[in-house]
């Protein structure tokens, strides 16, 4: 099996992060914004694992585990907030309609 080159991994992570950032900036649906955030977190984890493989160190995968825990808690809380907004009678999931605290 061929190894994945380090430079290619960096390039792939940069492209993934750019796609996720474009998704957060362009899409206004809260569910899509959360998915784009997950793509960005995956790109960051890919850089950690690639660096760990490049320098033969297990710390990269340890940081990947931490990013996994962060993504799990962030997704759970974000989806709970989305459900709460929807249950309070908000008609759409547009993020721009929620910019007032007591709106």
């Amino acid at each position: 099996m061929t190894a994945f080159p380090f430079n290619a991994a960096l390039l792939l992570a940069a492209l993934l992060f750019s796609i996720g950032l474009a998704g957060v900036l362009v899409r206004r649906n809260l569910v899509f914004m959360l998915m784009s955030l997950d793509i960005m977190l995956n790109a960051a984890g890919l850089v950690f694992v690639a660096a760990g493989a490049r320098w033969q160190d297990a710390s990269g995968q340890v940081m990947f585990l931490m990013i996994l825990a962060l993504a799990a808690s962030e997704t759970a809380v974000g989806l709970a907030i989305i459900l709460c907004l929807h249950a309070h009678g908000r008609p759409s999931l547009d993020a721009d309609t929620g910019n007032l605290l007591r709106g």
Partner: protein
Amino acid sequence: MYVLPLLSGGLTLVGAMMVVTCPVAVHAVLYLVVTLLSLAMVLAMLGAQFAAALEIIIYAGAIMVLFVFVIMMLNLGQPDRDREKEWLRPRAWIGPGLLAVVACGELLYGLPTLSDPDGAVFPIDARDVGLSLFGTYVLMVELASFLLLAGLVTAFHIGRTLRERP
């Protein structure tokens, strides 16, 4: 020579592009699963089989189930049967299905040859990660457990106020 890395990297990028540009949330979840599977293949090719397994189990398993639950609970306006029929047209799932078949075939082809002694991959297996995790970084594990507990309490609190609303 570079067919497998190019294929998995390209699948990851195509899936991510489709996630960002898809108009329907369920189709975006399908493409996100394809992205995560091919990214797991990339991680396995980097020599991190443990991270690849966790990517499939936790990300493509647990977190995607959360997304599917929430999307099922939202948008309850239309009747369910019409909505499901509209979601499950072949035009909707044939793209993610084909991409997932490619990713799965790649995993099945690539993983048995991963531990070749003459390969260019130097694997860092679960033993090294566990030694480092519970040796050097044991404080970080505690902090991650704090984070998970805080997420649990927050989600429970928001759900409780949701349930007690008349």
